[in-house]
């Protein structure tokens, strides 16, 4: 027996290498983990899903009926008959209780519906007093062209240990390059059709809001992070929050790349309407470098302009070990 403790860092590296190898070999479809998450979500109470009130009411309505016909199947021999006998013997009591609980549930749902209608009426009246600050119909998305930055970003993230996330990955152009460079990369994007295209091409991509996804990610769990798209649309508070989340979610020694649009180029791309009405607007490379440094990244640099990268910039950073 040896008194020597195992070299756990080496073992963890071997585990990451094994995962990368199995993903690359196609042994673990990129969609599997997402499918598992979606499947479990089906069994979670509506409160764990997004805040859709009507869906929550429907779920409450479905749940208000108490079914006393408890399943009696069992893999253990002799148990199923016992369960059936118990169910039959207790049916008179359970049905009495179930009727009362069902009545309570139904009355509660009715009360909630009435409450929902009253709240809706209040919201309508408020909207007439105070118009929406941001009407999505007033603007069109202005995605940055990531093409000129693919080589530099992939080079900066090369050798990252652990998962590499691209927020907002779009149809996966950069994600494909990251995966091709041997990185264990996945992406999120709120635009469903683009995510579908990425998934269809074999990439690991999820439909999700960037800030929601990063908020739900565990601290120090990412080996690398790429930010684009949302960095140009968020308001200043959201941009600060994004920088803080990035620093919290990237593991010590991990790396970040951010691709953004030059503020002066934004108006020419978006047009006067979006530029004036957008609740958020792009920040300069210098400002992003400042925010990332303040958030905790120890090494931050603005990359030299890439060929063909008119109007866009890239900032790279590394979190101290």
């Amino acid at each position, binding site marked *: 027996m040896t008194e020597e403790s195992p070299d756990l860092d080496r073992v963890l590296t071997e585990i990451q290498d094994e*995962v990368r190898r*199995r993903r690359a070999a196609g042994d673990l479809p990129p969609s599997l*983990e997402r499918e*598992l998450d979606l499947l*479990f979500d089906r*069994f979670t109470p*509506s*409160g764990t899903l997004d805040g859709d009130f009507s869906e929550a009411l429907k779920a409450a309505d479905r749940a208000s009926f108490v079914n006393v016909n408890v399943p009696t199947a069992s893999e253990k021999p002799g148990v199923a008959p016992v369960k059936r006998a118990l169910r039959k013997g207790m049916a008179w009591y359970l049905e009495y209780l179930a009727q009362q609980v069902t009545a309570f549930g139904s009355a509660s749902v009715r009360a909630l519906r009435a409450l929902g209608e009253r709240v809706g009426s209040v919201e309508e009246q408020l909207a007439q007093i105070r118009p929406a600050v941001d009407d999505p119909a007033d603007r069109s998305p202005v995605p940055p062209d990531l093409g000129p930055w693919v080589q530099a970003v992939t080079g900066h993230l090369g050798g990252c240990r652990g998962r590499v996330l691209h927020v907002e990955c779009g149809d996966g152009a950069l994600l494909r390059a990251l995966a091709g460079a041997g990185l264990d990369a996945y992406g999120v994007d709120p635009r469903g059709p683009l995510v579908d295209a990425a998934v269809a091409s074999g990439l690991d991509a999820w439909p999700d809001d960037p800030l929601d996804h990063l908020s739900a990610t565990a601290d120090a769990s990412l080996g690398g992070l790429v930010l684009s798209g949302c960095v140009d649309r968020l308001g200043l508070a959201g941009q600060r929050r994004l920088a803080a989340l990035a620093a919290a979610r990237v593991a010590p020694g991990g790396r970040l790349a951010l691709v953004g649009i030059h503020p002066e180029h934004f108006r020419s791309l978006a047009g006067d309407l979006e530029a004036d009405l957008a609740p958020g607007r792009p920040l300069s490379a210098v400002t992003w470098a400042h925010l990332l440094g303040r958030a905790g990244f120890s090494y931050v640099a603005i990359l030299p302009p890439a060929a063909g990268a008119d109007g866009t910039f890239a900032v790279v950073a590394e979190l101290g070990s």
Partner: protein
Amino acid sequence: MHQFIPSFVTRDAIGFHAMQVHSVLRDMGLRSEFYVRDASAERQHLVRPYESYRSRPGEWLLYQASTGSVMGEWLLGRPEPKLVNYHNVTPASFFEAWEPWLCDEVSEGRRQIEKLASVTTHAIAVSRYNQAELTAAGYRSTSVAPLMLDLGDFEHEADRPTLEWMRRASERGGANFVFVGRIVPNKAQHDLIKALVAYRRLYDPEARLYLVGGGASPAYQNALKRFAGALGLRGAVDFAGSVSDAERSAYYRGADAFVCLSDHEGFGGPLLEAMHAGVPVVAYGSSAIPETVGDAALVLADKHPAVVAAALWKVVSDQDLRQRLVEAGRRRLAQFSLERTRAAFRAAMEQALAAGATAGASR
């Protein structure tokens, strides 16, 4: 120095800890009684109702804090110097969707902890993780003394029928993975099931997962069972429920690895129990888990199913790693021997009393 314990029951880690606290206090020459809200039958002869406490000059009140309780509110109003021995209150966010009624109780528990900060002389946390929560809650004087565990309580003759049952299930081959802990959302048994899916797909289609522990969240437990059913894992995931000491020992004996993917643990006693049983441990590095296991477990920063599966495969297939982890686990246990933990608690108490003396001198 009298202990105030909301619920003082047998077969409970906090209950054993409180008994050891009592013994340490007596060794220090301090008179100490148990004041409780409720207690199991076996402990009734030791306790008094907390409302019956009558103050005497120079007495201190030591609160065993692990949940919200009317006792906590009562203590807030007491004028005697107070100590808090903090075991952690699970954040309410874990229960919000599953058990809203429990969410309120847990939220209230955390509020009580925060309110006690301004009237507590000193707080003793069972881990540095918990100490950080106390500091964030505003406690000015804190120290750490690990939970006093009865490692002998980990030694039970394994239940033969359970061992035989696991052996028969293993006849088809396949690894056995065990997790011991209540079925509650913060212990993330759903992530264990996801990891099992990945493991069976990548390495071993006959692998099994044994979830040992009572269901404290019916909604969550129901969701887990339906999840396992939908994945076709009814025969591969065993919901053992609340088991006897002998049955729990059998599950450890039959395990190839102990796997814990909890999102929140205030200490993680079963991790040490697994080490005592000679079972290698794979755990997600959240909350107090890294502090409890040290370098005696494979601690993962990432619990994506593929990563957990690869880690478990590494432990199952690499005999040298496995043996080193088992040996490291046995060495780790020495840090939690009763002799060491009693000494640590006594030192924390002396620090607390010194802090009280300083505070008294400044009043």
